[in-house]
């Protein structure tokens, strides 16, 4: 026998109150806490959900970011017009300096090619890259990531290095079909193997959410100096070696700090290097849809 109409409406009302009241809130909070723990232990389903959702959301975020991009471009243009004379003088001077460097670079390039030919060096193909627009920013207080409007269909893979003209920005940690996420060098979870350009001593560049990441696990024989250049060492087998990262800004107290070449707050476009790390054996490797461990 069907329950009377009044009773069923009362039951529905009570269930609704329960769900929107304390019990419902408790259940939802417990679900959210479980998701946090699952994400922390790198649960594949949560990772997949994040990649799929980002892929879906990117067209909307991209459309919303258009006015921001236009406004930024207008502001940059206006600033450039105001500074055109000063900028011209600076660029002329820089151009003279670069011409001298060009001569040096050409000579070194020839020398390098000759030496490589003599030694029959293998396994260092020239880098290919994809230029992608930054469409989103994490914005949160604990994360330093950027969202790119390019993904697996553009040939990007998790682990690829993201650079701008000045130097390394970070690496791709999530790659979907049409979007991907860069973990910036400043993020708390970022760890990049580097070396001092002069002594070739190795170390790890560790982000801590500040503007200047720390230099940790530096070889004990290393004597870093302020202003010394830092480049990627490539020892992780993921990032290509020799990418410029920054210079040592301070030596202490605590670990040395690195001032990055790239200004992470002003990124509109980045280049993603499609570097294929050397592999032993033919099998294995990640496909374009997976994420690397953070």
């Amino acid at each position, binding site marked *: 026998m069907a329950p009377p109409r009044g009773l069923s409406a009362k039951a529905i009302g009570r269930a609704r109150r329960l*769900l*929107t009241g304390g019990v419902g809130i408790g259940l939802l909070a417990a679900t959210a806490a479980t*998701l*946090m723990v699952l*994400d*922390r232990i790198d649960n594949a389903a949560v990772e997949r959900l994040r990649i799929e959702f980002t892929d879906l959301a990117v067209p909307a975020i991209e459309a919303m970011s258009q006015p921001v991009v236009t406004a930024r471009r207008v502001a940059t243009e206006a600033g450039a017009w105001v500074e055109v004379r000063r900028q011209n003088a600076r660029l002329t001077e820089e151009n003279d300096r670069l011409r001298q460097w060009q001569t040096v670079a050409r000579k070194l390039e020839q020398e390098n090619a000759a030496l490589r030919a003599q030694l029959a060096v293998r396994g260092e193909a020239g880098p290919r890259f994809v230029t992608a627009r930054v*469409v989103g920013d994490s914005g949160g*207080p604990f994360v330093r990531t950027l969202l790119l409007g390019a993904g697996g269909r553009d040939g990007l893979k998790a682990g690829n290095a993201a650079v701008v003209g000045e130097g390394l920005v970070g690496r791709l940690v999530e790659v979907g079909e049409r979007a991907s996420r860069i973990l910036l060098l400043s993020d708390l979870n970022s760890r990049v193997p580097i070396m001092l350009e002069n002594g070739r001593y190795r170390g790890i560049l560790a982000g801590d959410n*500040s503007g200047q990441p720390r230099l940790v696990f530096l070889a004990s024989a290393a004597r870093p100096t302020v202003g010394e250049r830092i480049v990627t060492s490539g020892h992780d087998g993921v990032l290509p070696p020799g990418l410029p990262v920054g210079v040592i800004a301070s030596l202490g107290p605590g670990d040395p700090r690195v001032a990055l070449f790239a200004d992470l707050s002003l990124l*509109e476009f980045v280049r993603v290097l499609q570097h294929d790390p050397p592999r032993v054996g033919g099998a294995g490797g990640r496909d374009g849809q997976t994420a690397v461990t953070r």
Partner: protein
Amino acid sequence: MLGALGRRSIRLAGGAIPALSTLLLGMVGLLPIDVGGLTRITPLLAAIAVHYWSVFRPDLLPPWAAFAIGLMLDLASGGLVGLYAFVFVLLAGYASSQRRVLSGDSFVTGWAGFAVVMVAVSLLEWTMASLVRGAPMPAGASAVQSLLTVALYPPLFLLLGRAQLSLLRES
């Protein structure tokens, strides 16, 4: 003349304004906006919307909707999945249960109420992120986010107030 179906559609669309405005403000926080070097820490605009609607129209933004919006922001922002979902559910629950106090006799008391809530939100966010990571997170950024959010409350209060008025006209 609108038929019954038309009126019903308008009512439904109007009822979605709280959730849509909250989601929209959340997405604005994801845009690469650069304001004087503050680009890395953007105010938690969606928290203002969750607070506003939970105080003034909790029927249109129930805790499960706050949960869903928080989860979407978690997924899109690349942060810890579940963190904003957790924070928004508790914020919605608390704000709707204390709506008499938080709606305030004047705008300033309402604003002060939100400031207190936002401090609690930041503390909750920081505690959960630190607990899950197993080490204390840098607290400075969280404090800056909280201050920026409180500072942006008045213009968004006006904006959401307008949205609420249009909602009343439609229903």
